């Protein structure tokens, strides 16, 4: 039974002001600064910065979830995966049209400053998450 219980991951997607999603998953795919990592049960402890801003989760029930987690990071230890991002959101909670509009707006403002570039990246992540979720 001990073997059984370690066959899934305890995943928590946490934003600054609330827990966005919490549940059990079979695999978590996140894009870190070094590329995509897929995390399966029994993964070695890991701390990584998220780059792409989206995280994909396959739950134990077979559902496929996508979340936008711009400027976040992921920590894995003892089959516990925590994804932390100030403005984490689930893909299916995002209004795709609105996210697209925001992205266009962010692009229009330009990517000159560092803050602007961050904004564009965050908007892109939201659009991508919403697209994948729908």
């Amino acid at each position, binding site marked *: 039974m001990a073997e059984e219980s370690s066959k899934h991951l305890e995943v928590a997607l946490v934003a600054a002001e609330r827990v966005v999603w919490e549940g059990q998953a079979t695999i978590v795919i996140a894009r870190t600064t*070094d590329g995509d990592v897929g995390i399966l049960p029994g993964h070695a402890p890991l701390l990584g*910065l998220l780059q792409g801003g989206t995280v994909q989760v396959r739950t134990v029930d077979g559902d496929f979830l996508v979340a936008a987690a711009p400027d976040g990071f992921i920590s894995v230890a003892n089959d516990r995966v925590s994804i932390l991002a100030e403005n984490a959101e689930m893909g299916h909670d995002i209004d795709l049209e609105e996210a697209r509009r925001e992205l266009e707006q962010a692009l229009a403002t330009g990517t000159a400053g560092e803050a602007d570039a961050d904004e564009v990246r965050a908007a892109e992540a939201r659009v991508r998450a919403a697209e994948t979720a729908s």
Partner: protein
Amino acid sequence: MPATQRELKDRRDSVTTIKKLTRAMELIAASRIVKAQQRAQAAGPYARELTRAVSAVATFSNVDHPLTTEKPNPKRAAVLLLTSDRGQAGAYSSSVIREGERLNQLLREDEKEIVSYVTGRKGIAYYTFRQREIAQSWSGESDAPSFAWAREVADKLIEAFLTPTEEGGVDEIHIVFTRFVSMLTQKPDVIRLLPLEVVEGEEAPADEDVLPLYEFEPSAEDVLDGLLPKYVASRIHYCMLQAAASELASRQRAMKSATDNAQDLIERLTREYNQVRQSAITQEISEIVGGANALADANAGSE
């Protein structure tokens, strides 16, 4: 006669209005405090996970980061003072300001120059009235601080911390805020924010002999680089949430005693009013009786 009936009545009416006001404010504060506590609870997981991650990096790697390194000879210290935006909260703002003054005194005795950062209109007013310099101030969200707000403050403070001292940077940062102990007790408190004192020692796996050796992507330095500013923001947010809950609790208490006082005052004024009214009636009666007697005497004399 000390006061006329009408004066007393007017006074009682106005106190009644004040009582209604303070009672309303008390109820508002009471309902907001529940929200503030919920917000503090909701922010818990993020802070906890972040602390866990930071202490993991600190414990399992030997990386020195500018934000955790003590500067050898601290000369300039920043003090972030968290006060409220609005009054009517009893001694809330003045006691946290007093705590701040105490800290300033201590720092000055250590021959450190003080750079003040203030949030909340009450603190800003206190400083500007005394014509003290404020490096930066924020206001508007003291009773419901959002994370974005904390982030803004954190960014400014980190920037100041990373600037070399000669160029106007600071060597350490303290936060003065009010800790929410319970509904009845709120205590002004000081913590040192930077350089960070990372609480080391994520509980090592008890049953197994191997410590989790973290892999870092891309590298321990970069991860720490990304994590620490978030950690600082989260600490500030925590302090702000505590301060907000304290502010509301002390407002509720202050308004409750104001309501009680108003009630006492109303009772006293009502009694006084009744007395005045009664004595007026008594006087009127005795005047009538006196008048009637005089009339009767006059009539008796003429017949």
